[in-house]
């Protein structure tokens, strides 16, 4: 059983190094071993796939931004749940009430975005904006 911090985190360091080595190895390996044949079909964005239509440089709908924003906020909420879950056994009912108050306020925010239709992706896009 590893006890000290360096011992506990050494496997993670090894894993990160292996991950970097595999990623770099694949790129370098294919660069060294692969043949460089360029044809029209090969240079297409999706080889043997669908033919791209139009420009890729289109503005995305603000909905994506909203979803990302809401995701961050609920992510921050979840971060607080983690230490709470670890010490829940010690806190008991007090811990439940404290977290209930916390979650309750945020659930009102969830209710608000639900009613505002932020999570509703099936609605028709208004003219002029691109999804």
């Amino acid at each position, binding site marked *: 059983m590893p006890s000290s911090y360096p011992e506990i985190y050494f496997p993670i360091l090894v894993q990160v190094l292996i991950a970097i080595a595999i990623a770099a190895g694949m790129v370098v390996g294919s660069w060294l071993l692969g043949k460089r044949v360029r044809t029209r079909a090969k240079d297409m964005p999706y080889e043997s796939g669908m033919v791209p239509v139009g420009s890729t440089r289109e*503005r995305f709908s*603000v909905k994506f931004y909203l979803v*990302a924003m809401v995701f*961050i906020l609920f992510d921050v909420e979840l971060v*607080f749940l983690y*230490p709470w879950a670890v*010490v829940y056994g010690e806190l008991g009912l007090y811990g439940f009430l404290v977290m209930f*108050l916390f979650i309750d306020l945020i659930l009102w925010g969830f209710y608000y975005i639900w009613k*505002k239709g932020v999570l509703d992706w099936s609605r028709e896009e*208004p003219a002029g904006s691109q999804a």
Partner: protein
Amino acid sequence: MDAVLFLVFAAIAVACGISVVVQRHPITSAISLIGVMGALAVLYLLLGAEFLAAVQVVVYAGAIMVLFIFVIMLLNAGVEPPGGRSWPVRLLGLPMLVILVGLLSFVIRRVFAGGEEVRFGAFTKGGPREIGRLLFTDYLLPFEVTSVLILVAILGAVVLARKEID
């Protein structure tokens, strides 16, 4: 060993930070920012803040990077044209940097004169258990106020983007 780890990851953080500023394409800058955040997480870990290091990766490198990428997509930001720097920037940039670094190192040496070296593993109270105990006893009010903050942020995000949705 500790000093080597610190220097390696501090160097990675600074190199990625310079890359964020220097890159011409915003997506490349954003990916460099992931490097900064990952290196910062390791620095937190070296200080013994285990939970903070994990949160740094999950929230910053995860959620906040997604937001940045979506903002880049939303603004449709392309490659930035190489722009010439104005003459005050050329003239004063380097001296100002030297003065700033000098001042910072002077103040840090003054304020933390009696500081001792941080050893990796010397401080072990940065785990979720210790944070949870403190959070739900001594820091209960800030914790509950955070939920108000999150609520206000949700309302703010929706109100700001509502014009585009409706």
